[in-house]
């Protein structure tokens, strides 16, 4: 058996690293001190005398006087370029006569932390791209895996991006369950895939294995899921997790909990009444009560349960009542429970765009409702994770976790479906034309270099907009699938109001830090799409 088409770790083909570029005669460049192109200015609410500075690639966070901020802004060479999607929040104009030079010591600190530079804009862009490329390579070192035991699902949610698979007979052939023979072949292929990432047998002693569908934890899928877990445990340790509608979770009770399927993301769509209008069985009946029972069961077994709430303008006002329902169920008392919101995206013709929110719009709408309904604080906003990251930086005085790409689809995630096809992103599955490869009946693994490259070379450095964006190493370029939906190409960026969201969350985190508000501890989520 052989693996075709090497390698899959992205090469440093986009830009050379800083310091390794062709030498440019320094005497030909006029050096002058300017504000770094990657300085982020964060206004503090009700504080006109000070603001925060964040540097986009050094990772510095600083509080400065208005005088210093004005001085720095006066040395900006140009306004930031417009994002392809959305607008930056406008920066205030600098009033004439308001620029005063800070002390030499302050200028020294501004230089040391990256806010002032003598690099040309191109040199600095190359530096950012070099950092992004390094981070992307690092992220691509170790593969992680997701199994889709079936595309079938027992629910018929109107907004599902896979709705056609269950409702259009032309796709009926997709609704098979992964066979034992195919699972064996996939596990023969996994060491070969790891070899493509430069990993020898024995280099990987713990793997991340997820289950996604369709509905992966259907009652009838149990033998396949259990067999996958046993196979994974036979070649090393594994962390198992699942995205499930939880209607049949009771069939997996002995496979749930620490050391087994340790984490499950489960979707609710509002109060029991609202949920039962939206997440329905094929016969139109509701699913809430079964799901609620299974959530409590999973929590009792020690599994972490992340409740995902898909929100649009039609169900947002049911959230206060849903928060009360969650409290009545007793879920918030479990440390292994959390609930978060995500905007519904118009991914099929049954979803009207005008009923949807952007991430920023949903965040603001939830904040307004939290003021009126404090019980809604058991439900996280989409950007609470962003705020937590900023808060962690203020508490620990450490550096942010920068990223060169948005998610695992752009680095090292492999998704196996019930046909042995391999995909990069679970939002783009079930169509052989877009698979990144497949496991052949004889166990051979093929990868399509063209499709692999389309996904795996998408990073901050490969996008001309991201390379010039101050927020790029925090945002990673946004979701490829949403970018394709809006711009027609996976390689486009998807900004989703990130600049405004980032600044608002950093300011909130700082004010909370200053006033000693207790910090939430949240673990990472499955996918924010």
């Amino acid at each position, binding site marked *: 058996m052989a693996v075709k088409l090497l390698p899959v770790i992205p090469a440093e083909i986009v830009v050379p690293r800083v310091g390794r570029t062709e030498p440019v005669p320094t005497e030909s460049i006029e050096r002058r001190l300017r504000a770094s192109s990657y300085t982020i200015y964060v206004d503090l609410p009700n504080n006109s005398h000070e603001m925060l500075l964040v540097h986009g690639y*050094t990772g510095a966070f600083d509080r400065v006087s208005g005088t210093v901020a004005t001085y720095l802004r006066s040395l900006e060479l140009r306004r930031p370029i417009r994002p392809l999607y959305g607008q930056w929040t406008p920066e205030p104009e600098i009033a004439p006569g308001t620029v005063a030079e800070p002390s030499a010591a302050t200028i020294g600190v501004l230089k040391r932390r990256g806010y002032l530079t003598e690099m040309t804009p191109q040199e600095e862009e190359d*530096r950012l791209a070099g950092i992004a490329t*390094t981070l992307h390579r690092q992220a691509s070192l170790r593969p992680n895996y997701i199994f889709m035991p079936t595309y079938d699902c027992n629910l018929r949610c109107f907004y599902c991006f896979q709705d056609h698979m269950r409702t259009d007979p032309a796709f009926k052939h997709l609704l098979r369950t992964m066979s034992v023979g195919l699972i064996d072949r996939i596990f023969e292929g996994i060491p070969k895939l790891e070899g493509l990432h430069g990993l020898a047998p024995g280099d990987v002693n713990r793997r991340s294995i997820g289950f996604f569908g369709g509905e992966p934890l259907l009652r009838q899928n149990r033998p396949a899921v259990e067999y996958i877990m046993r196979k994974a445990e036979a070649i090393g340790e594994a962390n198992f997790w699942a995205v499930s509608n939880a209607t049949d979770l009771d069939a997996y009770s002995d496979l749930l909990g620490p050391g087994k399927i340790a984490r499950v993301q489960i979707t609710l769509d509002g109060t029991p009444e609202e949920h039962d209008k939206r997440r329905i069985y094929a016969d139109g009946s509701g699913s809430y009560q079964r799901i609620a029972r299974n959530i409590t069961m999973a929590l009792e077994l020690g599994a972490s349960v992340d409740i995902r709430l898909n929100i649009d303008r039609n169900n947002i006002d049911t959230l206060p009542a849903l928060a009360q329902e969650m409290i009545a169920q007793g879920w918030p008392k479990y440390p292994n429970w959390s609930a978060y919101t995500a905007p519904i995206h118009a991914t099929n013709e049954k979803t009207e765009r005008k009923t949807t929110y952007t991430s920023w719009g949903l965040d603001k709408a939830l904040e307004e409702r939290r003021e009126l309904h404090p019980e809604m604080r058991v439900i996280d906003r989409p950007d609470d994770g962003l705020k937590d990251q900023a808060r962690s930086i*203020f508490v620990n005085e450490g550096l942010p976790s920068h990223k060169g790409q948005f998610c695992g689809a752009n680095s090292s995630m492999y998704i196996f479906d019930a046909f042995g096809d391999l995909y990069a992103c679970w939002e783009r599955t079930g169509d052989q034309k877009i698979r990144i490869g497949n496991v052949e009946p004889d166990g051979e693994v093929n990868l399509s270099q063209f499709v692999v490259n389309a996904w795996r070379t998408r990073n901050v450095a490969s996008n001309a907009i991201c390379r010039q964006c101050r927020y790029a190493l925090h945002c990673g370029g946004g979701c490829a699938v949403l970018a394709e939906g809006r711009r027609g190409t996976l390689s486009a960026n998807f900004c989703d109001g990130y600049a405004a969201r980032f600044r608002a969350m950093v300011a909130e985190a700082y004010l909370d830090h200053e006033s000693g508000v207790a910090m939430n501890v949240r673990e990472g989520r499955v996918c924010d799409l």
Partner: protein
Amino acid sequence: MSAKAACATSSHWEVMLVHEQELETREGLDRLEMSEILSLNASDLDVEELESRLEMATAVPNADCWTNVCVIHF
């Protein structure tokens, strides 16, 4: 000490106290003005050392860094 003298002394101390408070306030303002920049993280950060920091990060793969969004942190 007469009541008048006591009152004068008290006033004197009150004046002194106010003066000291003013001085403290002014010093506080001076300190505030001197604090043009306050580093909130990584106080030893130096952009000149960025490259070596990245080299080190690359040499020691961090599992958390390759599981940013789509894979759960355990």
